[in-house]
């Protein structure tokens, strides 16, 4: 205190407080960049694409004439691919999550599986496309079908479902398990009657986030060689004659929303780019809605859950 008088100290404090303020403004600015970019993106698509959105757009096939082209085959394809993805990824992801959380003993195999799940989440999506091309399309002979695409996306979102399941189950206090065991329940009875129902909301959140990601994935589906010009629908899953259900659609060629959009974006004519904007708008609203539902579910869960 001898060397510096009070004034000097005050100046130092003022300088650092100024830095504090400057950084705070920079921080708000940085946060706004991500947000504003998205706003610009959404506004740009809205201005270009909204006039194109009509009932006909959803019920027409793609066409060489941009004015009459639509996304019928794309949204039907997306729906069917998502059915396959969910049917494969949900049971498998939940099963794996339950095993790792409740059954696995601490040994080297468990550790390998755990490291592996973390690493899989970091593998670029296009690599899954290459795997599907080599394994499903050629090795298993599924061809460039809905089944191949659905399975490729299922592998892609598997880590998301596994992690969500584990987190949801881990949050259940151990007294619930002890109570069940004390009444003589087996491990599986404890899991199926208590742990899975209590963690259902958390698992559902993960499944929705995973599927929202799968809907927007383009690269793996391009890689398996999905055609981009599909002016027909896959065979209907419901039949008039016995046994009423048909799985022919699994093997049908298809297109999906992001592929349709990519196809339109890469054309030079401006009219097609307007179609791309409209398709993109549908895609963004769909994925944002799904993510918003998931985030809301999680928020509700955190609020209501008190063990």
């Amino acid at each position, binding site marked *: 205190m001898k060397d510096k008088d009070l004034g000097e100290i005050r100046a130092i404090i003022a300088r650092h407080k100024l830095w504090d303020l400057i950084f705070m403004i920079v921080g708000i600015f940085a946060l706004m960049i991500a947000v504003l970019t998205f706003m610009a993106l959404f506004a740009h698509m809205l201005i270009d694409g909204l006039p194109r959105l009509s009932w006909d757009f959803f019920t027409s096939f793609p066409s060489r004439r941009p004015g009459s082209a639509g996304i019928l085959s794309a949204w039907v394809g997306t729906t069917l691919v998502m059915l396959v993805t969910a049917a494969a990824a949900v049971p498998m992801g939940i*099963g*794996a999550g339950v095993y790792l959380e409740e*059954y696995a003993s601490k040994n080297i195999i468990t550790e390998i599986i755990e490291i592996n799940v973390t690493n899989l989440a970091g593998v670029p999506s*296009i690599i899954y496309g290459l795997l599907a091309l080599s394994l499903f399309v050629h090795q298993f002979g599924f061809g460039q079908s809905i089944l191949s695409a659905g399975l490729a996306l299922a592998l892609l979102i598997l880590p998301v479902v596994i992690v969500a399941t584990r987190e949801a189950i881990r949050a259940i206090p151990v007294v619930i398990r002890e109570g069940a065991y004390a009444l003589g329940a087996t491990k599986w009875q404890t899991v199926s009657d208590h742990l899975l129902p209590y963690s259902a909301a958390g698992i559902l959140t993960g499944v929705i986030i995973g599927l929202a990601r799968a809907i927007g994935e383009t690269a793996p589906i391009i890689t398996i060689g999905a055609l*981009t010009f599909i002016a027909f629908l896959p065979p209907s899953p419901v039949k008039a004659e016995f046994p009423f259900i048909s799985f022919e659609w699994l093997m049908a060629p298809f297109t999906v929303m*992001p592929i349709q*959009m990519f196809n339109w974006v890469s054309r030079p004519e401006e009219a097609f780019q307007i179609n791309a904007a409209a398709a993109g708008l549908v895609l963004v609203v769909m994925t944002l809605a*799904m993510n918003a539902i998931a985030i809301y579910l999680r928020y509700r869960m955190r609020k209501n859950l008190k063990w």
Partner: protein
Amino acid sequence: MTQPKRLGYSYRRHLGERFIEALLFLMAFVSVAITIAIVAMLVKESIVFFEHVPLWEFLTDTEWTPLFDNAHYGILPLISGTVVSSAVALLVAIPLGTITAIYLSEFAPFTVREMAKPFLELLGGVPTVVYGYFALLFVTPLLQKIFPELPGFSLLSAGLVMGIMIIPYVSSMAEDAMRAVPMHLREGSYAMGATRFQTAIRVVMPGAFSGIAAAYILGISRAVGETMVVAIAAGMQPNLTWNPMEPAATITAYIVQVSLGDLPHGSIGYQTIFAAGLTLLLLTLIFNIIGHVLRKRYREVY
């Protein structure tokens, strides 16, 4: 005295339990099987490729024209495209992501943070093909007003959009790491008269170093593996350049370009995408290992 039957050891019940456990184990093992399948498949197809093309040529040739009559198989142009676009993306994502994370973790009032976190998470869910559209039709024309010589496809605009796209990933992971730094360290710093900014830079960031490094590594591996933005906005012509103002193909964009065409299964062109895929996987693997080492070495245990 005989034991009542229903209290006895049920063999069927025991067997059922074992069966379920085995089934669940198989499901968990699928993830390992996927990894094995990925590596086996890429290596298998690449071996055929490298019988055709010497590894030396693959690594040193400066041209990548596998589909031309006079075919060259040098991966360097694809690597340069990948490196340049990722570098541009990281120049955007790392500073902005870090600043956002510091702001949210140390400065933002509770309500701002509670609003901003879900919103950033939502941004992470936007399909990449939509960002590609945005880069090509919004950012490129905008940049052309500043740099009139910028071509219609460029690594710069693809990289910029990719960078903004990965901000949420970097910031949310870095923020989680900073929030894990215990409060008493901050309180100690404040008690010494430090401002929030000083505390953030000198106490919180060093304390969260391993988590922040992991966030950067995640950002890098996302940028390297990102496909649609570069395929749409950076063009698909392999071009050995380090200039972001030029169009060039990345590894991922090349795979897309080949997949869009109709190459017969088993041809050399078909095998090139697996060699390119293997290169991509090795690149991301290197970054993942670096991340792992950083996390292990600099982990602070509280």
